[in-house]
């Protein structure tokens, strides 16, 4: 097995997780349960495809993908923050909605129920300057940047405050609802970028192309104990397991189904507290603060 090809393949798999998990971390640190990452990613992938197809430019695709994620993030935010709807229910509904909306408009825009036409992406090959794909660099930088924002800026302090003690935050004048709106909007945009990467990397949109990656990101958020860097490491770990499985496919050492289970089993184990208990932000999921 070539370690270099292992690394590049692992990164390709990890980038969507890194974007989505960062989105999950910021929403959950603000106290909003983030089960809609899958839906944000799928919407982002689809709107990116629309943008890239009609403009011919991947950069317009990136922009459209961010806006698609933002749109669904705002639906999530308005329902759970303004209307105090149950966050778990809304998250699951957004995932269903994203599947329906992307399928409906795939049919409307491209008269297909399976995939879009080919779109332009970024060059994915390795060149003299390293990777040419700007999304790859963004994906690698997003977790450190988020860690800086969460732990070293005033906005980050506010996010953590409204996720732990919203009442205390409100009493010192922090606009709780507003901070949460921003956090969920960022979460939609970041997860949307994860979807953008998928669509541009595969040069098309295919029906349900996110295929559960949003839930692997949810697993990474929890396994990483709601910390941006640890969640990113969890993403890399899950991606490494997948890469190993793909590269060892001929050997039949371990069936792919069991490799698929790894992130989920690890997350359950982490939640049960066998190795260092995963404790969520105190106000996570509370609709009345």
């Amino acid at each position, binding site marked *: 097995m070539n370690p270099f090809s292992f690394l590049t393949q692992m990164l390709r798999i990890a980038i969507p997780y890194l974007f989505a998990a960062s989105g999950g971390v910021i929403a959950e640190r603000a106290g909003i349960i983030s*089960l809609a990452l899958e839906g944000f990613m799928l919407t982002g992938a689809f709107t990116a495809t629309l943008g890239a197809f009609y403009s011919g430019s991947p950069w317009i695709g990136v922009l459209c993908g961010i806006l698609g994620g933002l749109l669904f993030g705002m639906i999530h935010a308005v329902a759970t923050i303004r*209307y105090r*709807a149950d966050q778990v229910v809304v998250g*699951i509904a957004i995932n269903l*909605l994203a599947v329906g909306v992307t399928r*409906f408009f795939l*049919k*409307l825009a491209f008269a297909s129920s399976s995939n879009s036409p080919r779109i332009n992406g970024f060059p994915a090959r390795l060149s003299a300057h390293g990777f040419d794909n700007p999304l790859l660099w963004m994906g690698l930088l997003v977790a450190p940047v988020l860690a800086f924002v969460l732990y070293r800026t005033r906005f980050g302090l506010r996010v953590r405050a409204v996720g732990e003690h919203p009442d205390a935050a409100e009493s010192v004048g922090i606009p709780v609802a507003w901070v949460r709106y921003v956090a969920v909007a960022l979460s939609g945009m970041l997860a949307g970028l994860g979807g953008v990467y998928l669509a541009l990397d595969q040069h098309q949109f295919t029906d349900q192309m996110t295929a559960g990656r949003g839930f692997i990101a949810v697993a990474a958020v929890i396994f990483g104990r709601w910390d941006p860097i640890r969640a990113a490491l969890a993403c890399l770990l899950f991606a490494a397991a997948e890469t190993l499985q793909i590269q060892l496919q001929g050997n039949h050492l371990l069936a792919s189904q069991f490799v698929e*289970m790894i992130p989920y089993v690890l997350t359950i184990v982490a939640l049960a507290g066998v190795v260092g208990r995963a404790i969520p932000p105190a106000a996570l999921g509370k609709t009345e603060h």
Partner: protein
Amino acid sequence: MTARLREQIEEALFPPVVALLVALICGDLLIMSYGQSPANVYRLLLEGTWGNAYGFGQVLYKATTLTFTGLAVSLGIRAGLFNVGAESQLAAGGFLAALTGLALSPAIPGVIAVPLCMIAAALGGGIVGAVPAFLRVRFGAHEVIVTIMLNFVVLALLNWIIANHLHVPETLHTPEIHAGAIPRLDRFIPAFHGSAANLTILIALLTAAAIWFLLFRTRRGYELRAVGLQPDAAEYGGVGVGGVWFRALTLSGAVAGLGGINYVLGYKHYYEDGFAGGSGFLGIAVALVGRNHPLGVVLAALFFATLSQGGLAIHAFVPKQMVEVLQGVVIIAVAMSVPEVRRALRQARRPASA
């Protein structure tokens, strides 16, 4: 009618009505984006579902599975637990029912084989439900995340068993079972010919009635609801919250698992990988719209079954994916209007009582 009952009915009915109106408007927009007439498409949707016996039979078939998963989710919510695992519990139930059917000799009469397969189905779902129940009670692990994660684990495991050990070549389903078939409705009402509707629907209705009785007419049910409303107060009142949670989530899984017989015993007579096809997740919508009441769940199951069958009826004019959009819209609209309606009604009541 007492004022209290009227308030309860208003609080239960307003959100679904609001959601239906919102969904109708969204549906209008989607239909018009396709250059069709909304009135025409809605008429086709109704004709293809409630307007002919075959379509209605398909609605009944789909509503049967959704009744089980909706009851399962609502049972959890009544105890204050969110079971997002109905999808894998349903699959595990269907799988064990098929295994039992395969193991039994075809000579065994249906009156014995069917109940055995039903017990196996409930057991399959119950085991998948007991895992998050145990982790919640013993370690405080949040059941929402555990049930979501367990969905992937269980479905991958079942996929591995079927793909590697149990499938008929070139397919992803088990061999056909010959013991424990549940008769289709067309045997009694010929007009249903060709539709998948079968007598499992009676079992679904009996299950709904049994859960109603358990919740509202027994001590255990009272304790379960008390724990769901205020676990701390219930604990103080002498109820063992952990035990109630464990039983509620396990029973919830068992009910979802029992739903597997609709497909395995009533329709195809084999287990097929992926047969659950989202019915478990839609169970969350059914419980929500049915306001966690067994009668409401049955009605909501009919509603969502009508939508999904209706999608096929309109497909020639508008893509059937429209109904998937509407399902999502209905869920979000109900979830948004429940707290809002509660607040509005409370405000409206206040001047009268003050």
